[in-house]
């Protein structure tokens, strides 16, 4: 997860750096390389985003599973709450 975030940050930085070069609309080798890098970074960015979304969905599924499964998490009943105000002597 940390790696994915790191890659996303680096790719965004590269995207910004190269886009500033390509904005000039020149047909130099730099602009070509810039366009290629931009394309690559966009693809990487998309795949990272997809990966993050997948992971998020998995986590959400796990959370809902825990909520539904009574063996994992016991629901606190109202009766239990009221038992706080008693002492056994």
């Amino acid at each position, binding site marked *: 997860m940390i790696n994915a975030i790191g890659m996303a940050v680096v790719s965004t930085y590269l995207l910004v750096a190269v886009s500033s070069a390509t904005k000039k609309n020149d047909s130099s080798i730099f602009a070509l390389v810039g366009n290629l890098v931009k394309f690559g970074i966009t693809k990487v960015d998309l795949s990272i985003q997809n990966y993050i979304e997948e992971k998020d969905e998995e986590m959400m599924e796990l959370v809902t599973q825990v909520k539904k499964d009574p063996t994992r998490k016991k629901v606190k009943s109202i009766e239990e709450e*009221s038992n*706080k*105000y*008693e*002492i*056994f*002597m």
Partner: protein
Amino acid sequence: MKNGGGNRKTRSDKKVDVKPTMSINLKNQLYSFAYLCDEPVKDCAEKLCIDGATSKVIIDDICKWFRRNYIYHNTVAIGDSERQKLKIHIQGESDKVTIRFKQKDYDLLCELAHALDVTPTTTSGILIKTTLTNVEFMQQYAHEHLMHLSDKQKRDIDVFLNKLWGLKK
């Protein structure tokens, strides 16, 4: 000393009798503790109640039941009248223990009883229960009142309390 009409004068330092009802189990625990401390039960229970009523550890423990504010040692424990009243359950057979408080200490007990919205008698029972079962309080109590005892007596008290708290040693 007799007064004119044949009535006895009341002592200025007359003690007040309080007889809390508690389970036989708790009563036995109190009696055993007093025996190990080499003190009468009355004195031991009195000390537990008075120390408990002014102990931060105990007040922090029972302040969840406060329905009115309680002031001790320049500290105010906030009560909430919206809270449910504390219910007392006695498991199994019950019996009474007689404790005698000085008027000043009884007044303190009454203040705590007012905060808990129960009777002073019940409050003394609650204090005995909470003090005996509170590890931190008993450590402080031992440092304050039991240091004069012999090593064997201290060890016996230690074994008894560990057994009471369900700790292995």
